[in-house]
């Protein structure tokens, strides 16, 4: 049996993450979910939070907001609209996305329920990105700082 998991995170804008890892922690809707290889097949909804991918001597954190994950014994696939590798958070872009989302929320009567949900998720996602960015001010080692 496999001793690694193939983690794939896919958004409409492309594949954000595609690597073999040893263990994955997912932000499921009702709490964190740790997945090791040979996990029981499972479909789960994703809330907002960090997907933590642990490989030998390395740890990647990817911020996701909403979505759905399929877990099989040797793979974890995450389908989500919003996912950003924390290494690649762009403060300006996140700020811009937040501003746009806030603007669109002002006219919320014009949005369909699905659109509204997406805009709200976009707002939550950009806010989370900014929070991550501020937590890791330049000079601090990645992953350091208060995890509160």
């Amino acid at each position, binding site marked *: 049996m496999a001793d690694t998991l193939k983690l794939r995170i896919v*958004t409409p804008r*492309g594949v954000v993450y595609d690597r073999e890892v040893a263990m994955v922690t997912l932000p499921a809707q009702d709490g964190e979910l740790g997945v090791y290889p040979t996990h029981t097949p499972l479909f789960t909804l994703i809330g907002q939070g960090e997907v933590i991918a642990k490989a030998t001597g390395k740890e990647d954190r990817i911020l996701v907001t909403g979505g*759905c994950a399929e877990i099989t014994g040797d793979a974890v696939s995450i389908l989500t609209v919003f996912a950003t590798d924390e290494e690649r958070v762009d403060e300006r872009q996140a700020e811009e996305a937040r501003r746009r989302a806030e603007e669109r929320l002002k006219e919320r009567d014009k949005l369909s329920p699905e659109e509204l949900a997406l805009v709200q998720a976009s707002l939550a996602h950009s806010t989370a990105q900014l929070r991550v960015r501020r937590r890791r001010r330049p000079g601090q080692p990645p992953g350091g700082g208060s995890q509160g």
Partner: protein
Amino acid sequence: MPNTRNIRHRIQSVRNTSQITRAMQTVAASKMRRAQDAAVQGRPFAQLAMQFLAQAAKAAEDYTHPLLEAREVRRRAVILVSTDKGLCGALNANLFRQAAELDAATTMFIAAGRKGAQFLARAGRNLVAEFPYHETPLFSDAQAIAQMARQIFSKKEADEVAVLYPRFVNTLVQKPETVSLLPMNRLWEKENLSNEPGREYLFEPTVPGVMDYLLRYYLDFQILQILQETRASEHSARMVSMKNATENAEQLLKDLTLAYNKIRQAAITTELLDNATAQMAIS
């Protein structure tokens, strides 16, 4: 003697045309790159979403949903995705040839893109709605179309909803393709997932919770992907056809210039000959 002024005018007009087509080629090329990126990057998502639904639907056998209900197909609705503007080679023509083959009596059409709507109106087909979509297709564009498709299907106005669009293969090749959207099972039936053993899945929090979530967004994103593919095809086709037009114009310009010079030289020779004869007559 052939008229040099006529040829000069033609040269000028061909040159103007080539300048316009070259400008259009440059514009299409830059739009093409962006549209192609969007289309190619959206594919893994569409593919994975389909796999998710197929696997989940297989595991959740007891789950039923109006959009998964397969009925005997008596009437079809076809979403025809075309461009808004012309000058993109045979892209729309190829698409419309396929559309024309569909049975007029049992098919209703939904048009996305102005060219398709014009074609359907001219051909006297049953056009029930027309939707615009942006240069960079937005989620809301796709959602409006998806909403209409869901409505038609659940009100049983049609037993199948399909989409006909120019799939982007590469810059030179775009292929008209019909994909069945509703009922949703059609989408993955042909994907040959049957050889994979149906796994026993757990669902967290619940089966309806996961399935509702997947079904709610699935169609919208699938249509968004199709709109993006269409844009990529459109700009690729336009870039190529404008490139050809520019090359043709340049060739024509060369031929015309040659003809012009020949006439001019012939005129000079005749004139010299005239002078020489006159001189000889005098002396």
